[in-house]
């Protein structure tokens, strides 16, 4: 599904990724762990195509295609989804309206018919139930005035609606209390499927108690330093990143 080879990238002028190699298979949930400044968020940004990050060397192939050659919207339409660490507010734009347009852009790309307002409403209500998000949030402007937990849940709702094949969760646990963490994790778990790969980027092992990964990769100083099964996360919790 995703093949990253010898990836070097800079954030601004600063080299952050220094030869990262990683393979993610369909159906797998891979956790990317690592200390502050190791390049976790840069990896998320590079994969989603954000401005300000430059790939200087290496390649990323996604479903056999050159991911780096695509614009951010092309990547999204091809099924790459980034759950933002800091979801952005868009005043005056209704949550439902926003998501309907996004889904239809994706469907159009896939050659599927666009959903009308009625069909979409049915779908989003279903998904809202699945990720336990209040229906009242659907009618509010995108993320405007949402609490931290609501914002993160809204990201998961978008993911549920857009049904990506590669979901990147960037520090989804940051700023969540224990109850919110549980609901968000349940939402994510409900979206696990054999066709979908997930890249769960996190600082703490805590999240992985709820979203149990198939693989754990430790990112340090811009390279994958170690890889292992879910038990690696527990070990890190004890020993820390610097061994």
């Amino acid at each position, binding site marked *: 599904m995703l093949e990253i080879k010898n990836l070097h990238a800079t954030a601004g002028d600063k080299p952050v990724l220094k030869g990262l190699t990683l393979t993610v298979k369909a159906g797998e949930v891979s956790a990317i762990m690592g200390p502050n400044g190791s390049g976790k968020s840069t990896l998320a940004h590079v994969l*989603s*195509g*954000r*401005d*300000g*990050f*430059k*790939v200087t060397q290496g390649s990323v192939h996604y479903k056999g295609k050159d991911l*780096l*050659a695509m*614009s*951010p*919207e092309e*990547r*999204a*339409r091809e099924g790459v*989804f*980034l759950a*933002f660490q800091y*979801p*952005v*507010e*868009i*005043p*005056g*734009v209704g949550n439902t309206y*926003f*998501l309907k*347009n*996004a*889904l239809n*852009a*994706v469907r159009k*790309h896939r050659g599927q018919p666009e959903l009308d307002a009625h069909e979409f409403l049915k779908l989003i209500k279903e998904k809202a139930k699945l990720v336990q998000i209040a229906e009242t949030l659907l009618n509010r*402007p995108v993320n405007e005035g949402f609490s931290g937990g609501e914002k993160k849940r809204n990201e998961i709702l*978008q993911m549920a609606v*857009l049904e990506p094949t590669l979901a990147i969760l960037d520090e989804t646990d940051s700023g969540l209390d224990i109850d919110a963490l549980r609901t968000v994790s349940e939402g994510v778990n409900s979206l696990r499927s054999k066709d979908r790969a997930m890249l769960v980027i996190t600082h703490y092992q805590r999240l992985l108690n709820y979203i149990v990964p198939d693989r754990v990769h430790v990112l340090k100083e811009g390279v994958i330093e170690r890889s292992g099964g879910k038990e690696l996360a527990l070990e890190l919790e004890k020993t820390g990143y610097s061994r």
Partner: protein
Amino acid sequence: MTMADKNDNSIEKLVEQDYRPGFVTAIEEDKIPKGLNEDIVRLISSKKNEPAWLLEWRLKAYRHWLGMKEPTWANVHYPKINYQDAYYYSAPKMKKKPKSLDEIDPEIRATYEKLGIPLKEQEILLGVEGADPAAGAPANVAVDAVFDSVSVATTYKAKLKEKGIIFCSFSDAVQEHPDLVRRWMGSVVPYTDNFFATLNSAVFTDGSFCYIPRGVRCPMELSTYFRINAKETGQFERTLIVAEEGASVSYLEGCTAPMRDENQLHAAVVELVALDNATIKYSTVQNWYPGDKNGKGGIYNFVTKRGHCKGANSRITWTQVETGSAITWKYPSCILQGDNSIGEFYSVAVANNYQQADTGTKMIHLGKNTRSTIISKGISAGHGQNTYRGAVKILQRAEGARNYSQCDSLLLGDQCGAHTFPYLDVQNPTAQVEHEASTSKIGEDQLFYCRQRGLSTEDAVNMIVNGFCKQVFKELPMEFAVEAQKLMSVSLEGSVG
């Protein structure tokens, strides 16, 4: 494409914008000689067969104007206008005045059709939608069509007359309802008011007149569509709307002009009068030619609009969407004289490429418990400069007056500018005045967020801008709101790579 390339592709990049109403109608014109002097004023008045009192009024204005200086306080810059180098009257040649809508020159009819304004009356029954989809515009809108210096048609006149409503061109009103015109004209914007209003008072050629009698709610939207077609011609129209006690009306105004390299002057005056318990809702979608991407050509839009809430509990609402014109200088205002009267101003102003907009409002609170609301949304793109200028004045006897002002600016790119000049003058200690202002750059964050969800940059910008304007768009009549959204996306087309 590497990611570095995509950086260059982002917010600053500008491409040519598309101005769809920019065509010229080939039609024979009846023009008077170029220039401005007393003889020209007399000639205009005689062309319109005006009564002596009106000519006198024009001449007084003209003489007053000679002693006035063009204002320089606005945040707009343009070369000196040579007032002698323009035509002050140009009308499509007509053998005789068309008696019915069927007799309108086909060229003119085609022009309005192309602009989506039907010059005919449709027999559409309530609930029978789309009976004539080719007509393009919604039913239940009466149109007065002003082409250069004259009104060429007014629809639904007879139907409105049944309710006692007068809706006609200003020229017809002068002939048919001289007492009403004489009573109210200049009562809100006197001929001495300001340089451009005074010029207008001297040389105005046409416009619309609406009179809603006591207790009548106007059953349909009234609208005037202003079209400048002739070259080197200024358009100087006057609109006067009077709502008697308990009357209410919603009025819409649209404007377009061909694309030309020379600048053209449009100096209009609009006066609104609302008596006790009357309501006037005045909505504008201004789409005069804005000039090309290098700032060449375009309309200078110097307009004086003022409403007088003369009666108790009266209400005047100005809603404007200003996307066109090279320069906009316009401050639709309310004089809140009647106790408990309400003045509202909702504005979206766009300055793209080299457009300059200096617009806002004045709310003058005279009566007790008068209330005003100002919502201004300025969007700047390209090299555009957008200024909000607003004054809230609360006079001594305006016990319990309240004002709420909110001015938000949105910047697209880093060559443009947004400026805010709120003036406050509060002379009564019981007044409550609130002012909120914000300036934001259309976020790279917001754009990326939308694109990461699969939306194109263009769609994302439209969505963000429309969200920004929502508070104002929701004040527009339904059909107009849709039109305004479309216009907004055309106006900003290409302003973000």
